[in-house]
């Protein structure tokens, strides 16, 4: 089974990379993007086919390592 985990900055945490990209897009003449926030995505191959087990395992992985919960939220998607 494939899965993906998305880790993004919590609201209110400053995202200088996102801001820089916003600026760069504007100066490239690309209009219509009001705001950008950059996050990380992890694409994974899982050994299991059990969706409940997989979801639990991935949540654990996020809590233990993939996300820094002081500043980041995470989201698990099974594909």
């Amino acid at each position, binding site marked *: 089974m494939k899965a993906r985990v998305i880790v993004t900055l919590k609201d209110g945490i*400053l995202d200088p990379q996102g801001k820089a990209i916003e600026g760069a897009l504007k100066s490239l003449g690309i209009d219509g993007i009001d705001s950008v926030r950059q996050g990380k995505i992890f694409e994974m191959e899982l050994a299991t086919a059990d969706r409940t087990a997989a979801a639990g395992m991935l949540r654990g992985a996020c809590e233990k390592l993939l996300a820094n919960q*002081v*500043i980041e939220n995470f989201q698990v998607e099974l594909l």
Partner: protein
Amino acid sequence: MNAAIILFPGSNRERDAIRAIEKVTGKKPSLVWHGETALPAGTDLVLLPGGFSYGDYLRCGAIAARAPVMDAVRAHAARGGLVLGICNGFQIMVEAGLLPGVLMRNANLRFVCRMQHLTVERNDTPFTSHYAKGQVIKVAIAHGEGNYEADAETIRRLEGDSRVAFRYSNARGVIGGGANPNGSTNAIAGIYSENFRVLGLMPHPENLIDPLVGGIDGRGLFEGVAGFTRAA
């Protein structure tokens, strides 16, 4: 002083730290591999060196913070032992929960290496007794993610308890503004734990121990720790 330097794959300023400790205290620190689960008996100071542990992939210090040896480091801190984290070591500490907050990417998104002035915020801690309060020292910085941030409550607590160890300043001790190399909140360059036994800082005092190589403003920190452990 019995110092133990923790080695992670990708640490790269451990030699600088070994040399600083040896030069200042006359005693070689022991080296502890990331996979160990105990510290050498009688360890006074644990030092988490600079570098790019595990490539700093994922987040700086994140993978190292979860290495087996970190339980021993936490236990050492809980016993009131001294822990010093420099640069990547500081990043590992916040990831490991030894200190609050996070180190974000430098505000201008670029790595920065230069000589940097700092103010010593207080000199009554195990680390800073060889400096004067308010003294301006010049040390090296070399990091891409040294922008210290924490929620407002944490910052208030840190400031209220005077747990800020060093702030970025110019040569005259004027804090912040253009002298802040990374956008750090309140120009924070280093912070203490509640009991002042744990210090994390971005700058590299270990690179400033020799008049020929930039100056000796980093010596005071190691002299301070050595003095403290002698007295203890």
